[in-house]
């Protein structure tokens, strides 16, 4: 199996006040693997995903992030996205006045820059993906994430994963704020959009999403690093015993 993402002894601080937020993370994800990172609130799980994407809020002080063997630390966020790394946000940012369709067209054109798809076909494709995640067409005329409900945000983010076809998808708390039915639908979409070689990193607080998207590896995260690694059973243990007793 080919290595996709490798995080080596990664340490990072916040840019504004230098607080240490990653404290030596090691993680390797191969093509086609599904990993889950679980951890208590405030353990810095979401931070890891933003450091992987190159958020300007954080600064890497030590270690490396390799994508297919190449360091991506010097790459801008958009360059990382173009390599095929995708992040689904827990609370995606609102961009007032920009319609979803316009945003998706641009995202697609940038990520698939060699694709010569016509505007007409691309519009059709966007319509199809909107249907797949059970979003109304009117959704495409709304402004990016503006006034979206919790469910709409998650559906929108997963739809983008489907449309942009990343090699490595990081899903940050994709289950938060969803009821059981909505969670099942979102999880179904994830499974539908996951192509064979796509690597997935799920970041979650609860085990329940892992009933629908089955992980190959589960990591328990605490205090800025991975504390324990196991298989899907580890998630069940966490659910039973709590993080404190792992």
């Amino acid at each position, binding site marked *: 199996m080919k290595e996709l993402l490798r995080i080596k002894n990664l340490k990072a601080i916040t840019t504004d006040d230098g607080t240490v937020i990653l404290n030596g993370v090691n993680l390797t994800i191969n093509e086609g693997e599904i990993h889950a990172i679980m951890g208590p609130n405030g353990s810095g799980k979401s931070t890891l995903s933003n450091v992987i*994407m190159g*958020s*300007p*809020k954080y600064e890497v002080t030590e270690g490396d992030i390799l994508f297919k063997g190449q360091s991506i630390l010097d790459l*801008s*966020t*958009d360059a*990382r*996205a*173009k390599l095929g790394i*995708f*992040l689904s*946000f827990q609370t*995606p*940012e*609102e*961009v*007032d*006045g*920009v*319609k979803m*369709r*316009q*945003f998706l*067209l*641009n*995202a697609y054109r*940038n*990520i698939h820059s060699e694709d010569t798809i016509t*505007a007409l076909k691309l519009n059709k494709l966007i319509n199809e993906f909107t249907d797949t995640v059970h979003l109304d067409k009117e959704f495409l005329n709304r*402004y*990016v994430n503006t006034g979206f409900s919790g469910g709409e945000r998650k559906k929108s983010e997963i739809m*983008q994963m489907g449309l*942009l076809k990343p090699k490595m998808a990081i899903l940050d708390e994709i289950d938060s704020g969803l009821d059981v039915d909505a969670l099942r639908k979102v999880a179904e979409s994830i499974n539908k959009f996951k192509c064979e070689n796509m690597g997935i990193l799920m970041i979650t607080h609860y085990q329940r999403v892992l009933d629908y998207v089955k992980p190959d590896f589960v990591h328990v995260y605490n205090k800025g690093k991975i504390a324990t690694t196991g298989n899907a059973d580890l998630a069940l243990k966490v659910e039973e015993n709590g993080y404190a007793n792992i």
Partner: protein
Amino acid sequence: MSKNDFNINDLIIDQTKYDFRNPEIYAFKTLPGLNEKIIHEISESKNEPKWMLEKRLESLKIFESKPLPKFGVDVSDLDLNKIIAYIKPNAERSNNWDDVPEEIKDTFEKLGIPEAERKALAGVGAQYDSEIVYQNIRKDLENLGVIFMDMESAVKKHPDLVKEHFMKASPANGHKYAAFHGALWSGGTFLYVPKNVKVSMPLQAYFRMNNPGMGQLEHTIIIADEGSEVAFIEGCSAPFYNTTNVHVGTVEIYVKESARVKYVTIQNWSKNTYNLNTKVSLVDRDGVMEWVSGSLGSQKTMIYPASILRGKGAKNETKAITYSGSNQHMDTGSKVIMTAPYTSSTVDARSISVGGGWAFYRGWLKIGENAKGAKASVQCQALMLDNESKSDTVPLIEVHTDDADVGHEARIGRIKQEQIYYLMTRGLSEAEAKAMVVRGFVEPFAKELPIEYAIELNRLINLEVESSIG
């Protein structure tokens, strides 16, 4: 082409499109400055009736006695004595592009005016320097009694209508530049829409200054008679010169009972231009005035489209966008005076400043004691794209009745880093991401424009994103 199709090139001002000069050819021009002799020359050249000459001379007296406004842009380096107020182009007025001299026609071709006329307009007036060189309206509208002609012709052919409305909404004693305009005005459009006539496509006037050191001072009057509807678009541009040009235009709009007028401006003067404009609308009972005001070019601008809601139930809607790039100081805003009951007004004014530009919002909303049941809201938002740029808002609100509903909101801010980051995770470069946020910011304005102009606006907004990233 959809206006939603994003292309970074659409956002860069294609300078070659506006910045081209024709040779300085003209039939006649005055000496620089302003005095009685020059006024007589202009009036004679136009073969004006005596009453108009007298109005000009009266304005000159007011100009000489009035002090400069105590607010707005710094005009200490604007010497009105060096401005050539009247340059008559070497062309006769015509309603046929084929009659317009090649060079002048070519100018308007480059600006896309004849093409827009064929596609989406009910009529066009084109002014080159101090005179209208082309004016035409669709025959069916003319048959309905719509009058659309250059102001000089209107003075002669419709003296009563002109006398009744000329500088009544914006009198010469309003301020120093209004008096300057009254003394030297030349060109502009006269539009009369008869009772209950609804003009479905917009009419357009385009103003082009070609000569250096000149002043363009066109006068526009729109009279929308009872129950009529019309939309009017004005565009303007000039090549860049190292000498100062000045534009002191005046627009007067009379919205009669239950009539509706939409006035759209896309101002893109070159950065050697002082743009000191006056626009006033008088709105009668149940009439609706919509100002859509885009101030993008010029070195310094003062413009505050005004609506005086003097009839019961009269309405005003102002949507304004101001762009202030490097070396620009834009003092823009709105003025709404509500004197009758149940009048209402909304103002949505937005500005973008970048590259050291300064955008100043100046608003005045006055609700008089008779305006019982009035409703008004003022919203101003300023977006600064970098640390060198400046923004101010001074919204003045005066309410003289207890029975009024007034809302106000002002926001000055920068693009959120989180927005840029989010868009970049979707493959947009930093420049594209910023451009997209700015496009979203101007969207409420852009959607008021006909699609051709919305595309044009995208082209006009030079985000200077490269320099703002630094």
